[in-house]
């Protein structure tokens, strides 16, 4: 049995998506910039994808730019906007719980003379709006806040944040990293004063290496990838047509029946959190039940190292992650969990379970049953 509960790291692609990607690679393989028919046919996939995605977000087609994924979208939004607006100011704001694609870029910007404020979060991992209100200044050029935290599933108050930023400094740009939220929680940038929004394809059953950045028409931004002038010169490089087609189809499939899927996921999450909380010395982190994102559950297992528990579950065919797998392979303590004030000794005992629309109650029951067997065994053997 294989039970994949690491959908915040990546997801299995929809079968329909792999069929389409394969068809575009093998049949409609033209370069969208070519003048001949083969190019025109390929270009149609890109146009259609823009139309689809623009509709889902209720924005204009020309505001969608395809990238290589969430990391590039995040990098571009920050670097491109910081450069283009440096005369208006050199101050940026983000939170302490962002993905490394944001935090590392901010660190780089600091090294070249920008100033960055990192907002604190509450015990559930939700950004403190009073801190945001205090932080926005006249020379603040950009605020970047994630929609859903990847480690504990905390849902950020994007709409309220948008209002605060608008009120304090209407010229400040607002970027949202929606990599974990897109396809699960609807967000309409124009209604929330969001100027830029990052999305990744492989978190929504699309292909890896795909994504896009929504950029509001009025935003001043510079490109960070130069070359043949594709996508209006804003993001050069031959468009990843099969990837773009796959991304767009995956997004459409996520939005079809989304309300029903989300209801079901919340029911699973509530069940799973309640069952975990009943277990001996298990602490559920982050927002509970109907709060937060519907697909992420974080829990700390006192006295058991997360890496060992992860491999013990792996032996049972259950795949989960310790901390954030996207920030993989590093023995670093989770910034999110620390920022939430989780006790030091629990940081190294924390697992993340992340669901997809394919996750079933039976899979969760099996996982709970395995945890029930494994935990007492592992607790017998600890470093003394």
């Amino acid at each position, binding site marked *: 049995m294989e039970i994949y509960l690491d959908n915040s790291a990546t997801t299995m692609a929809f079968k329909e998506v792999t069929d389409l990607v394969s068809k575009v690679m093998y049949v409609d393989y033209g370069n969208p910039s070519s003048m001949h028919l083969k190019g025109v046919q390929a270009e149609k996939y890109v146009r259609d994808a823009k139309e689809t995605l623009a509709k889902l977000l209720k924005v204009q087609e020309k505001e969608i730019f395809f990238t290589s994924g969430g990391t590039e979208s995040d990098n571009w939004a920050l670097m491109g906007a910081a450069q283009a607006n440096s005369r208006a100011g050199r101050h940026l704001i983000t939170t302490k719980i962002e993905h490394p694609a944001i935090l590392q870029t901010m660190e780089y910007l600091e090294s070249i003379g920008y100033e960055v404020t990192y907002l604190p979060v509450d015990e559930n991992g939700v950004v403190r709006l009073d801190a945001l209100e205090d932080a926005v200044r006249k020379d603040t050029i950009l605020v970047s806040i994630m929609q859903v935290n990847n480690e504990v599933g905390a849902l950020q108050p994007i709409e309220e944040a948008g209002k605060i930023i608008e009120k304090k400094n209407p010229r400040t740009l607002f970027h949202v990293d929606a990599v974990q939220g897109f396809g699960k929680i609807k967000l309409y940038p124009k209604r929330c004063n969001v100027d830029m929004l990052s999305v990744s394809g492989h978190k929504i059953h699309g292909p890896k290496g795909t994504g896009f950045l929504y950029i509001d028409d009025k935003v001043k931004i510079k490109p960070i990838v130069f070359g043949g002038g594709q996508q209006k010169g804003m993001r050069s490089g031959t468009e990843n047509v099969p990837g773009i087609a796959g991304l767009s189809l995956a997004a459409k499939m996520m939005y079809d029946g989304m309300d029903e899927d989300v209801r079901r996921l919340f029911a699973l999450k509530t069940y799973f959190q309640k069952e975990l909380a009943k277990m001996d010395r298990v602490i559920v982190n982050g927002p509970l039940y109907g709060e937060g994102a519907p697909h992420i559950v974080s829990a700390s297992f006192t006295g058991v190292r997360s890496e060992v528990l*992860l491999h013990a579950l*792996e032996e049972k065919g259950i795949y989960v992650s310790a901390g954030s797998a996207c920030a993989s392979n*590093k*023995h670093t303590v989770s910034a999110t969990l620390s920022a939430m004030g989780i006790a030091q000794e629990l940081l190294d005992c924390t697992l993340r379970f992340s669901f997809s629309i394919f996750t079933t109650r039976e899979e969760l029951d099996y996982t709970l049953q395995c945890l029930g067997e494994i935990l007492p065994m592992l607790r*017998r*053997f600890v470093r*003394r």
Partner: protein
Amino acid sequence: MFTAFLIKYAEIGVKGRNRYLFEDALVEQIKFALAKLDAKYAVRKTQGRIYVDAVSEFDFDETVEALKKVFGISGICPVVYVEDEGYEKLAQTIAEYVNRVYGGQQKTFKVCARRARKNYPMNSMELNRELGGVILDNCPGMTVDVHDPDFELNVEIREKIYIYSEIIPGPGGMPVGTGGKAMLLLSGGIDSPVAGYMISKRGVKLEAVYFHAPPYTSERAKQKVVDLAKYVSAYAGPMKLHVINFTDIQLAIYEKCPHDELTIIMRRYMMRIAETIAKETGCLGLVTGESIGQVASQTMQSLAATNEVCELPVYRPLIAFDKQDIVDISEKINTYETSILPFEDCCTIFVAKHPVTKPNVNVIKGHEKNLEDVIDGLVQTALETREIIEIG
């Protein structure tokens, strides 16, 4: 220009009537090393020399890199073959050769001509003198020094004429396979791959054993050891890696023995298991990466305690090396970056805060008695369920 390599070997030249065995082993190892490349080569042994002839298009640098990993080679001389088309043509070729290899530099040289074909119209002395003159006249920057030249230009008159002057240092050592076989205890660390490399440099073929402790160690930790074994096998030739599931043995020790002796007792069982496989597979000794005093389990007393369980000799090539010296070798053989990947290995998972540094063998033996009921079965199972991975 170059189409062949003359292989120089040092130590095996002096092995008396066993010499041909060593040479044959060296030829085999050269063939094995070159088989991984795309080009085709002929390796031949004639008149006490080994030549590698490229018989297809080949990449010079790639070939030299491959040869530099064959133990037993002390030097690699790139050779130019030319047809004998008379002295005038030879003189012209020599001048071209020197200008091409040393052009624009200030160098001292001497010519060493040899005639394997005695019917050549000039003798060696005449050739040395005449060709020396040709170089002085046609190659700017070159001056003669017969006592301590920067390069010796070798001209050998055979069925063809061989010209060479460069000697690229080889790795030295002895051809793998001439020194028997040993069992390497391979962990994911820096030391054990270096120990394997050093022992195989003395002509010893290797097998390796790795102790895996799932779920405490991960698939990636195992992959890391497989990768390290591959780097070692680039020098040591193909080897078998035996992967032992050590978890149950480790947990039994944990439950039944004093905690500060856990590492020592664990290592004693590792040695026992390694020795059992070694004997099964015809190995004549064990190899470890231990170095005196590096950690608690590598004090003289601890080494004595782990050594005590073995009948076979235990070779510890790094025993007197400082860590930095070991790191330097691991960088040279490309294992360092892999070794420092941060995956937990089975030696560190349950390690005590204050392990014994001066264990007493009798005390340890007494505590091992606590394991009597279970340990033979566990060791047996571990041996039977081992996974064998072919490397190289």
